[in-house]
């Protein structure tokens, strides 16, 4: 069974003891790796109702069978899985870089962390040698500073590090886990889980060979995909970058502005992809094994934020920019840099700041309550100051550090209507009111508001469906997209490479077989994707989530788009949402309450978890 390292490492941070288990072929085939394997390991090692920030909540770090190979975009991924402190359901976040490849070479398919260290520690993995090291010298430092300090301490430049920043230490529910300075396992607040365990960082050096089962076939595939990645399927990532989405979304009137007050900007010339690339991008870099490099490093060259350097994608650009009414790139880049410095998910942070600005403009929070920060929409300097406050949990930042939903619960005064989140996770830069397939996808996404759990927003935006219409059939589309991305995040290959799999699951099945030597058909892989989504649903059901949680932010349900344009008047009514949910559950073979029946679990080989749905199938 090549592709897999064959070992799962268990570390009890309370006792400092570790043990290993073999990765069985059955588990490997059933859950692949990445988020699939991670969720399986989490579910099997946790108890229902566990507090996400308690020692009893396991944190799983997992790799895919492709990690560590030369397959372009596939060699470098890793995933973190746990119970999300933001949503109370399953939390997962995938990151790329080099860290995952290094960990595979060290000989592990996954690590399960349990317990809590007495004092701040970092884990040092030197192939088979596992040590918990004193992290007092790096406590309080940024992920990047931590990486440098650990490399110095160990005396090895090629050590790869994933670390939390101050936000993770202070258990902000928006905290992420950053590897190699700019790559983030960003969403669902897993940095807080790491912080709650006193685990500052994971450092790894791996020296073992990675071999694949069918060398020649594999190398032919690598060659083929190098060619494909030079072509149109990945052109956008290679050239202007994901920031190009800003213009596309804006033209379609589906770019939320000022905390969903609007969906369009008349002028985007100061923040669009051309401006970013011409005036700010200093270098485009790539992750390990990648043949379509996409990471745009934006550098501020003049003005008060001179020297700020951040990776800019549409997501952080939108969240810290148009979403806060800001149209100045220098402050957006500075705010993005600070998010990385403190280890904060930029999307959630931006949406929480826009929530605060909305509260301020509506008179819910006074200038004094904001600690003197002029939090009006459009004030980029205020966004920068607020990121700093949130990172340090200082003053108003303490109120905001757990995200928009938690902040609204504390503020009251009707502010929950302004908190743009689903299940506690803040929304992303696609206006769900006029992207109704995406609205369904976001409502049912197991990790909360997110566009990248199904990719359905692309169907809406590319005109494959009537995006303003809620109708039967969308459930099936969302289901297919979810299954595909569950496979992509389990293998792990990069979501940005999705369009290069011309034969979709058939290409990925071939890749799986070439790497592992295990037979895999596209039908089996489709079933595996379905199994993983059902597994995620089971976790959420066990942790108390129901159909009522498959909903949309208040504004998406109640406040139609007002701007003159193709999306004017668009909103998702509760009736439309119910129609979409019924259609989706039906296409999944779930009950009207969104529960997978025991027969479905049997069919998917998940019978061992059927006690979770007992009594809920009616």
């Amino acid at each position, binding site marked *: 069974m090549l592709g897999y390292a064959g070992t799962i490492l268990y570390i009890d941070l309370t006792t400092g003891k570790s043990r290993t288990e073999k990765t069985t072929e059955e588990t490997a085939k059933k859950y692949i790796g990445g988020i699939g394997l991670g969720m399986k390991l989490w579910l099997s090692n946790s108890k229902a109702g566990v507090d996400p920030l308690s020692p009893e909540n396991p944190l799983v770090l997992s790799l895919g069978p492709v990690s560590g190979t*030369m397959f372009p975009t596939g060699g470098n991924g890793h995933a973190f899985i746990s119970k999300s402190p933001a949503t109370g359901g399953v939390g997962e976040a995938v990151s790329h870089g080099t860290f995952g490849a290094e960990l595979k070479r060290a000989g592990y398919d996954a690590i399960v962390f349990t317990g809590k260290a007495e004092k701040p520690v970092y884990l040092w993995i030197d192939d088979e040698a596992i040590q918990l090291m004193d992290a007092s010298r790096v406590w309080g430092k940024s992920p990047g500073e931590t990486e440098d300090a650990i490399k110095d301490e160990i005396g090895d430049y090629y050590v790869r590090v994933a670390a939390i920043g101050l936000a993770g230490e202070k258990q902000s529910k928006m905290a992420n886990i950053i590897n190699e300075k700019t790559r983030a396992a960003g969403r669902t607040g897993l940095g807080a889980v790491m912080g709650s365990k006193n685990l500052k960082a994971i450092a790894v050096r791996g020296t073992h060979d990675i071999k694949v089962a069918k060398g020649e076939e594999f190398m032919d595939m690598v060659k083929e995909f190098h060619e494909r990645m030079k072509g149109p399927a990945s052109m956008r990532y290679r050239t202007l970058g994901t920031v190009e989405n800003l213009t596309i979304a804006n033209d379609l009137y589906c770019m939320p502005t000022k905390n969903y007050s609007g969906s369009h900007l008349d002028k985007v010339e100061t923040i669009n992809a051309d401006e970013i690339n011409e005036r700010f991008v200093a270098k485009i870099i790539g992750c390990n094994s990648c043949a379509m490099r996409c990471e745009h490093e934006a550098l501020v060259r003049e003005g008060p934020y001179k020297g700020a350097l951040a990776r800019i994608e549409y997501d952080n650009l939108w969240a810290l920019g148009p979403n806060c009414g800001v149209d100045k790139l220098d402050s957006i880049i500075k705010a993005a840099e600070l998010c990385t410095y403190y280890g904060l998910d930029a999307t959630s942070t931006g949406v929480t700041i826009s929530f605060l600005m909305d509260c301020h403009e509506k008179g819910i929070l006074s200038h004094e309550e904001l600690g003197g920060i002029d939090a009006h929409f459009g004030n980029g300097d205020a966004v920068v100051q607020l990121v700093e406050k949130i990172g340090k949990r200082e003053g108003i930042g303490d109120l905001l550090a757990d995200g928009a939903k938690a902040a609204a619960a504390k503020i009251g005064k009707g502010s929950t209507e302004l908190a743009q989140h689903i299940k506690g996770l803040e929304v992303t830069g696609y206006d769900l009111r006029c992207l109704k397939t995406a609205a369904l996808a976001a409502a049912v996404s197991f990790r909360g508001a997110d566009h990248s759990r199904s990719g359905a927003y692309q169907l809406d935006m590319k005109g494959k469906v009537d995006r303003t219409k809620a109708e039967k059939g969308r459930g099936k589309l969302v289901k297919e997209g979810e299954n595909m991305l569950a496979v992509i995040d389990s293998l792990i290959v990069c979501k940005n490479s999705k369009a290069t799999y011309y034969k979709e699951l058939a290409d990925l099945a071939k890749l799986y077989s070439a790497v592992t030597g295990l037979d895999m058909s596209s039908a089996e892989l489709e079933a595996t994707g379905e199994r993983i989504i059902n597994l995620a649903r089971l976790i959420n059901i066990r942790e108390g989530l129901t159909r009522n949680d498959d909903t949309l932010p208040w504004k998406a349900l109640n406040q139609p788009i007002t701007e003159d344009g193709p999306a004017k008047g668009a909103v998702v009514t509760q009736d439309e949402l119910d129609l979409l949910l019924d259609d989706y559950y039906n296409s999944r073979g779930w009950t009207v309450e969104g529960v997978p029946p025991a027969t479905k679990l049997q069919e998917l080989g998940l019978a061992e978890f059927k006690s979770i749905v007992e009594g809920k199938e009616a």
Partner: protein
Amino acid sequence: MVKIHQRKFISADPEKCVGCQVCEYACSYSHEKAFNPIKSRIRLVRVNQLANMAVTCRLCEDPACVAACPRNALSQAEDTGNIVLDKDKCNGCGWCIEACDYGAMMLHPETKVVYVCDLCKDKADGPQCVKWCPEEALTIVTSDTLAQKARISAIRKLFQEKEEKQQ
């Protein structure tokens, strides 16, 4: 001995290099049928996000590695200038590693003798890192072609600046 401006080696253009490490995988796979950077004869260095460059043997004139070897295990090939190792003589002492200014000499984790770029002399299609580099950042150069390139780009820049000033 081959003349200095005819001696070919592999050079990375830092403007084009994105730090993807595909060269390391191509090298270790073609030499050892395994994906493992520590068995690659070319290594990527990312000093920070903006500074990425792959480094390998530059086939120096009077190579320090050869001079440093106390056991005469290293020599420079007459026809190509490649650094050649006599495996039987090498005991892995590492003096050549210390002597090389570029970090191009490395100790093999299994054979325990040093290894260095051989320009894929046994491969019909030449150096595999050059072939696989997705950014076309790697090229086979001589010190002469490198100097030519630098000269031309410097002069271009000069005239460009002049034109800009005139505008």
